[in-house]
């Protein structure tokens, strides 16, 4: 299903080129005002630039070159942060452009109220308009099929090349603008206006144009703003304090404004501040790369908090089809006889179940498939009325079908339906399987055990989820006995059997009342109430318009297992923010050691003992800290875009790992980095 996913390289040259230009465009103060940390840097950059200009004409204690150096690197700090954001947006835009190509202006055939057909441009269609789309035409707008059946190529949206069937009524009635009808024709009622279609919303989400800050991002922003104010205070008060220290010590000169600004920018959390919006956009982008369109960033974030996953059994936990796993002969019948009859009756049965019977007969009893033509057999197709299928050949009448239908069939011919067979039938049902009875004439030969096949690896997946603290609940229409058997085999934590839409809704409400966040997938209109109630609701793209409206995400691949991936992407988004915040704060220790001795060494030469990195000169020390502070943003762009690697382990282990890497790392790395930059500056005679 995911074969169509395109993995974009991290640094795509056209995107990089665009992002470089974008970085300059984003210097607009109105844009920077959104982010208090970077706005402070902007003010600092302007201020030091002015100081540098003044120093050219009116040399003070610091050389114009030194102040200019600080100013330049402060601008770089801003540009690097802008570049990160532009990169993240650019990657989204590339995706959007691809989508936009499919949104061509087409002429639509509109049906007016008095059934007259008229040609209008698709941009003039309104919600409620009825249009007719013929084979070969593009669907002009999102809508609902009100008449007709047709196959539609939705590859423009989903990337899936196999056409899908769209028909009026039921769960397959939604069509998306930009998809192509390849056979027959459809009458469609528009469900959205131009500019507000699914595609439009998708594009604007991808481009980040409508990006709102998510609740968690706002909370982090507040913390970062508070820290910025605290450090602003610490730096601003340093001016009078250092003046007084000069008076007390009787030598040296007070700290210069350029150094105060340098210290400030180094201390405020620029690393996380600069990358924060890039992380958010990249999170959305990763969702889109997984072919999931979220209607808001809030939904992506909520995905990381999910406590309970409601998963439909069919398609998510089990393969959609049942498979034959055992032939159980009746008394006096050999297994081979049963297998032979079962195989014969299934030779022309093209359903997956029928094929699995042929395969089982071959693998277990060595019965090769016989040529249907040579046998000159007459095949009886399955019908809803008889509820059985079979074959007539050489006077033999072999039938297979549902238990009660077969029992009637045997009894009608005065045959005997043995008690032992009935026991087998109920045993299979208890195991969660489906029994198929095979009979030849009036003689019941035995039972075929059709089994729900749990998807490979799903059990391990659920175990991982359990470790992450997420409970899995299987939703199925099966009876409780069958459901329990499958639930046990798949390793889910709980199940809801004989599920109705109302029961689903009630279950979600019950979990939510207990303070848990619930995620689910759905496709049918009858899923809509539950989808609307769930905290994270993923609608299948193949589902109805109502389901898509009710959910807050749409999975273009219509793959119910995607929910697990969505949770991981949500968690990754928060983790990346947290880890880089920790890194940013831990960085500050080293910057003090670089800047404080350098700033006051004139007043108190003894402070040089705190110069533990043995940085060459005061100005090289300050410049190195500022340069490191700017460069670290660049080095962390890939991490911001890709996200911190997610591991399915418990919270405590995850915290320990991330604390070691980003906390301890954030403490140690700048010591090394600043020292290296200092060595380079000295080698280049720049300071």
């Amino acid at each position: 299903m995911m074969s169509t996913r395109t993995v974009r390289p991290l640094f795509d040259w056209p995107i990089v080129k665009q992002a470089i230009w974008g970085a300059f465009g984003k210097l607009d103060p109105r844009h920077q005002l959104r982010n208090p940390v970077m706005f402070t840097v902007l003010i600092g950059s302007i201020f030091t630039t002015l100081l540098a200009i003044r120093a050219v004409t009116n040399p003070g204690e610091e050389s114009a070159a030194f102040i200019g150096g600080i100013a330049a690197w402060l601008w770089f700090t801003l540009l690097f942060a802008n570049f990160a954001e532009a990169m993240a947006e650019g990657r989204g835009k590339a995706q959007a452009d691809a989508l936009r190509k499919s949104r061509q202006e087409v002429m639509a055939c509109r049906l007016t109220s008095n059934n007259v057909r008229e040609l209008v441009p698709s941009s003039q269609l309104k919600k409620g308009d009825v249009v007719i789309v013929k084979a070969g035409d593009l669907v002009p707008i999102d809508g609902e099929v009100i008449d007709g059946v047709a196959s539609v190529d939705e590859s423009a949206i989903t990337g899936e090349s196999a056409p899908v069937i769209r028909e009026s009524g039921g769960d397959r009635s939604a069509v998306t603008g930009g998809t192509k009808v390849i056979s027959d024709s459809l009458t469609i009622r528009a469900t959205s206006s131009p500019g507000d279609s699914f595609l439009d919303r998708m594009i604007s989400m991808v481009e980040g144009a409508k990006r709102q800050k998510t609740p968690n991002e706002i909370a982090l922003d507040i913390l970062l703003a508070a820290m910025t104010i605290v450090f602003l205070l610490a730096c601003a008060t340093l001016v009078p304090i250092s003046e007084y220290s000069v008076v007390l010590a009787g030598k040296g000169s007070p700290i210069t404004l350029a150094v105060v600004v340098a210290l400030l920018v180094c201390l405020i959390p620029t690393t996380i501040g600069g990358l924060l919006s890039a992380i958010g956009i990249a999170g959305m982008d990763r969702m889109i790369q997984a072919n999931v369109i979220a209607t808001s960033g809030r939904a992506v974030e909520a995905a990381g908090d999910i406590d309970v996953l409601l998963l439909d059994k069919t398609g998510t936990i089990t393969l959609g089809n049942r498979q034959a796993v055992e032939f159980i002969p009746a008394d006096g019948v050999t297994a081979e006889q049963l297998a032979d009859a079962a195989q014969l009756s299934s030779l022309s049965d093209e359903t997956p179940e029928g094929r699995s019977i042929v395969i089982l007969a071959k693998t277990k009893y060595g019965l090769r498939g016989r040529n249907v033509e040579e046998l000159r057999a007459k095949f009886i197709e399955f019908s809803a009325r008889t509820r059985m299928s079979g074959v007539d050949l050489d006077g033999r009448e072999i039938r297979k079908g549902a238990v009660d239908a077969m029992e009637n069939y045997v009894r009608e011919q005065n045959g005997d339906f043995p008690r032992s067979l009935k026991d087998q039938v109920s045993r299979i049902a208890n195991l969660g399987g489906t029994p198929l009875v095979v009979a030849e004439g009036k003689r019941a030969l035995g039972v075929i055990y059709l089994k729900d096949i749990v998807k490979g690896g799903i059990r391990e997946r659920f175990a991982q989820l359990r470790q992450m603290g997420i409970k899995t609940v299987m939703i199925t229409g099966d009876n409780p006995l069958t459901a329990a058997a499958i639930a046990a085999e798949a390793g889910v934590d709980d199940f809801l059997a004989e599920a109705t839409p109302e029961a689903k809704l009630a279950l979600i409400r019950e979990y939510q009342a207990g303070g848990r966040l619930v995620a689910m997938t759905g496709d049918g209109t009858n899923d809509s109430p539950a989808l609307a109630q769930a905290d994270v609701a993923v609608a299948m793209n193949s589902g109805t318009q109502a389901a898509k409206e009710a959910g807050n995400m749409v999975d273009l691949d219509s793959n119910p297992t995607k929910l697990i991936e969505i949770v991981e992407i949500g968690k990754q988004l928060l983790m990346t923010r947290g880890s880089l915040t920790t890194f940013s704060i831990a960085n500050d220790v080293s910057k003090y050691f670089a800047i404080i001795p350098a700033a006051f060494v004139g007043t108190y030469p003894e402070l040089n003992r705190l110069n533990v990195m043995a940085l060459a000169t005061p100005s090289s020390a300050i410049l190195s800290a500022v340069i490191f502070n700017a460069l670290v943003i660049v080095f962390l762009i890939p991490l911001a875009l890709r996200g911190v690697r997610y591991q399915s382990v418990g919270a405590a282990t995850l915290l320990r790992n991330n604390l070691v890497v980003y906390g301890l790392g954030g403490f140690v790395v700048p010591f090394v980095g600043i020292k290296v930059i200092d060595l380079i500056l000295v080698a280049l005679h720049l300071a």
Partner: protein
Amino acid sequence: MNTSAWMEIGLFFVILIGLVKPLGWYMARVYAGQPCGLDRAIGPVERLLYRVSGVRSDEEMTWTTYAVATLVFNGLGVVVVYLLQRGQQWLPMNPQQLGAVAPDLAFNTAVSFASNTNWQAYSGESTLSYFTQMLGLTVQNFVSAATGMAVLIALIRGLTRRSTGTIGNFWVDLTRSTLYILLPLSFVFAVVLVSQGVVQTFSPSAEVALLESTTDAEGKSVTTQTIPLGPAASQIAIKQLGTNGGGFFGVNSAHPLENSTPLSNFLQALAILLIAAALCYTFGDLVGDVRQGWALLAAMLVIFVPMLVVCVWAEQVGNPRLTEIDVDQTSNPFQSGGNMEGKEVRFGAAASALWATATTAASNGSVNSMHDSFTPLGGLIPMWMMQLGEVIFGGVGSGLYGLVIFAILAVFIAGLMVGRTPEYLGKKIESYEMKMASLVILIPPMVVLGGTAIAVSLDVGRASVTNPGPHGFSQILYALSSAGNNNGSAFGGFGANTPFYNCLLGAAMLISRYWLIVPVLAIAGSLAKKKYTPPSAGTLPTHTPLFIVLVAGMVLLVGALTFVPALALGPVIEHLQLTATR
């Protein structure tokens, strides 16, 4: 440093931690309204008080009502103490016939005692009458401590209640804190102190003959000495237990009639941390998981113990300049050794350093030695302990609610790191909580650094400095750190009783106490409204060693990084200059 000093410090921790559970458990029962053993004795008094004052004890308050009650009550306290000082010459129990206190000093003192700071710009024996001390200051010693405890309990209710708008009743919390906890403990402790020779009398100062006569500055012969007396023991008991710290006498617990013996010294130091430490257990008990309380206590100790070791070490090593000129600073059976300037011989360097660390870790501020005379490194510790925001033990109640705010911050960042919207004790931490928590971490640095900047920029600010070099700056920084974190201890020698400092420090004490209480109560109110999220494997456990380290790290990084530049120009450079090889 000798073995007995180590043993004293070791015993200190053993007894302190041993008392945490019984006292914490008792306090939890008091606040939960369960029988606690003293009900029959105190219950009638409690009910009488409610009846007289018209308080309906079952009435619940929203956080805003609770905050208004707190502020109004404390505001009234300030006014009453101010008026008592201004009119003490007309009031009884003034055997020394002391006059009215100057308006700026009276304001400073009133704010100081109401805010649980007990910064003393005055010298008790020569400024305040017995009446003012007992009815003004001692009453405030009780109720200011009880206010801190009440706010903590309100915050705990916020954490434990679900989907409700109320966080308890301020009047009930205040009354129960005072009647059931502070009064009985203080009574017992005062009696013990009296047994050690701490004075408790209403007699005027005693006039005693000197053993050896001396001459004064004008060459006149002096044969007698005036020894100030007063009802000290009762005030000292609550001064230590309620983390107030305001001494009866000017030199505080260095005075032989305020702190007479090594045993009284040991017990007073213990009393400084006792309630603050035990409240951690109360917290754990009330939130239904005692591990949460022990974790917070452990986070306090993780910072406190290393700081204590550094301080004791610095004081015990002594002054290297004195070592150079062959002064014996070693510890031996005949002397405690180390830096003895400004320390009492009966206590010695180690017990003084222990006290200094404890009194500044808790927002107590009483002293048994002069912090001004500590070695630069030894003096850095008390200053830094205050700058951490008084959350390592801190004031009774206020220290723990401060630490809970830091825990919320730690949970926020740690929660992000594990990929979940952060939760603390089942309550989601969202932008409103972060906004309020940010105010809490913003205010102390703002007050301390802002105030210091103002003081060093003005001549009136510089004039009070009595030391040359960086130590002069340290004096100002210490004063602002003390007032701005409601500690109350001082670098002696600093001329604090000027209109400028009385007003500046008075404002600092007001802001840092009440601006913190409001956002804390706001968080309590907001948390109380939230639903409870049951923990799962994806929830970050908040009682593990990892989390303890994280909270301690948060306090150190967020609380203390701010002060590094200022400290570098004060005690740090002093230390580097002192130890520089010449």
